[in-house]
């Protein structure tokens, strides 16, 4: 088992290397650097000005050397400011006298964001916290609902209940966040249309913006983003649970229990449920990376400044170091959930052991 985990961690490291290098390469393409220079200064920079800015800020070192600087294997670039003679460089920080020669990921430094003008590590950890709350509430609403729908639909296959719940799950998987979000906003958060004018004299039932949820989460400002995200993921988990439940219900031991005279309720709750929930566990774990895309859409839609919002800001401004930080987070989320789902599967299902 330990060997298996070590091998997976090694693979994870290799994937992270490749992925960050691809991001690094794509963000450092000449037109992207030019765009970055212009966005940092002004849009009407001439070509020589762009080149000299890039030269001054260490963007002219060879690509591999700069990737090494980001990792912390290669000493950070240094230079001297022509105007005031002060030392400049990757590792120069304000209010710090002695400049270290290495400052990369290995040294725990994630670089400076060009959009936010702050330390990338700080930005990402702060924004991940905000997204963490969103994810937490999405999970709290989505998982129980999905499991209940799946179990109810799967326990008696082919009945009306099954048909209607299955149709509901299919509909939710066909409704991406940017569709359901817009519909929910009209339904609950518009003062002229939807349900609000029917029940309230003025104002809206829920808020269409979650900007204030960064400070304090309330039902008013957080319900819509949470349901919007939960709904899209819900259908998939529910369908997997249904399939798993339906399969378990045809098993021999369920028939034996029924023939012994155990009530249907007890057959479902005591005999079927535990075995039926093994497969959905894997699905739920693998759902996390998928939620990452959802986070980006929902945070943009509801103006919630979390990780997804940072990603969009960084990507649209070609903020290289922030994007690298974001992709590291993404890789860790994807591969860690895969690992947990594999390990969890083994523990839940004693019939399968890792070779």
């Amino acid at each position, binding site marked *: 088992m330990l060997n298996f985990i070590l091998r997976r961690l090694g693979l994870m490291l290799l*994937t992270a290397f*490749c*992925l960050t290098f691809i*991001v690094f390469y*794509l*963000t450092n*393409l*000449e*037109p*992207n650097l*030019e*765009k970055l220079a212009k966005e940092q200064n002004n849009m009407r920079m001439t070509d020589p000005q762009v080149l000299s800015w890039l030269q001054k800020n260490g963007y002219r070192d060879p690509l591999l050397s700069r990737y090494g600087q980001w990792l912390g294997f290669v000493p950070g670039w240094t230079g001297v400011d022509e105007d005031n003679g002060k030392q400049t460089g990757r590792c120069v920080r304000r209010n710090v006298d002695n400049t270290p020669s290495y400052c990369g990921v290995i040294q725990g430094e994630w670089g400076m964001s060009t959009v936010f003008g702050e330390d990338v590590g700080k930005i990402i950890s702060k924004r991940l916290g905000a997204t963490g709350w969103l994810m937490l509430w999405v999970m709290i609403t989505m998982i129980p609902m999905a499991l209940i729908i799946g179990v109810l639909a799967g326990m008696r296959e082919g009945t009306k209940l099954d048909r209607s719940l*299955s*149709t509901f799950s*299919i*509909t939710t*998987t*066909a*409704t*991406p966040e*940017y*569709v359901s979000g*817009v*519909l929910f*906003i*009209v339904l609950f*958060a*518009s*003062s*002229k*249309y*939807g349900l609000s004018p029917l029940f309230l004299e003025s104002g809206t039932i829920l808020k*269409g913006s979650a900007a204030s949820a960064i400070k304090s989460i309330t039902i008013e400002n957080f319900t819509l983003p949470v349901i919007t995200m939960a709904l899209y993921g819900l259908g998939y988990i529910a369908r997997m649970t249904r399939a798993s439940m339906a399969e378990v219900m045809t098993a021999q031991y369920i028939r034996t229990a029924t023939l012994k005279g155990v009530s249907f309720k007890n057959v479902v709750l005591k005999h079927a449920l535990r075995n039926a929930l093994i497969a959905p566990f894997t699905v739920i774990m693998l759902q996390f*990376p998928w939620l*990452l*895309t959802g986070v*980006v*859409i929902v945070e*943009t*839609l509801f103006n919630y400044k979390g990780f*997804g919002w940072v*990603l*969009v800001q960084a*990507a*649209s401004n*070609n903020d290289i170091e922030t*994007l690298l930080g*974001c*992709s590291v987070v*993404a*890789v860790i989320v*994807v*591969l860690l959930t895969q690992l947990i789902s594999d390990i969890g599967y083994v523990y839940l299902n004693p019939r399968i052991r890792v070779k």
Partner: protein
Amino acid sequence: MENMSGISIMASILWSFLPVWIGIIVVFAVSMKYKQSLGLYGKLFNSTVGMIGLGLLLFWTFTALFADLITQFDAYSQLSGMKNKLPGTPVPGEEGAYYLLGGDRLARDVFSRMVYGSQTVLIIAPAATLFAFMVGITLGLPAGYFTGRLDSVLSFISNLVLAFPVILLFYLLVTPEIRSTGIPIYLAALLFIFPIVFLLILFKTRFIAQPQKLKVYVSITLVFGLWAYSGLAFNADPFGVWSMDPNLLNIFVSVVFVNSPTVFRIVRGLTLDIKTRDYVAAAQTRGETPWYIMLWEILPNARGPLIVDFCLRIGYTTILLGTLGFFGLGVSPESPDWGLTINEGRKLISLNPYPAIAPALALMSLVLGLNLLADGLREQSLKD
């Protein structure tokens, strides 16, 4: 002229779609009549879910085809005085012309834009899915059949692409800056070669004993394939028949690139499963070549799950295209793309929700149709 009432708006919208209704009825009537001899497609008409799905898909297909007949306006014209108007507002100066779903913030007809928005989606989504399947099948079959080092390398690459958050990948791949580096063209050159390779191997293995036939098929594939290839990937078609807008090519290539690894994984998994069957062993004993076994023994037996996934994947690709439009990636800001229109419309949503709701419901119903169709197909193919 006065504004139309709710009921008459509904009635006029239904009336506008007349060519679509006729098309759906014709297709359903013909299919029902001959359903015995139509295989899996015919069996679809035994399942309500499948029929509803097919109906929704046909609705949007015919809408895209007959867009000019359905709409009274084009997707771009801005008529003065129609800014943010309510549904059913008459157009001043034109007798009997109405903005059926109102006007958007640039005074364009919401209804016409929704109808025209279906056109790009219904070309790009199925075509991109088809290309992704070609890539996934051509690489997934040998990976599952031979396993070993080839499999490790291909699986690593596909997992690498899958570990990327889709949005980040789109932000990196679909930008005007990337277009000027030529990366989309290299990617297109790589991805578009797969259908040609696939067809060549397909014919080579089938007609190895009939050199006459082989020559005909191979030369047709090469002539047409390379002709289309030169036009689509490099925009260098000498006759100018095949060409693709650079914007569109960029979106197309990125969507194929994102979808291929998943298809690869599915095909690889199916191959691993099917290659242990007796008929594969029989073919091996007969001395068939590995590629013959893969394409003519394994692939036909994997068709059930692949057809179902194909439908689901077109729906997923539609959602991806909407996501791209929503973030304004790779679409011109004027175009009636659904995702883009939703994003535009949500800015004034509390004032005038219709410009956002119309494309949102359109996109949802198309994806729902594809998902229901996939469900019906799965149900019917399991009955065999």
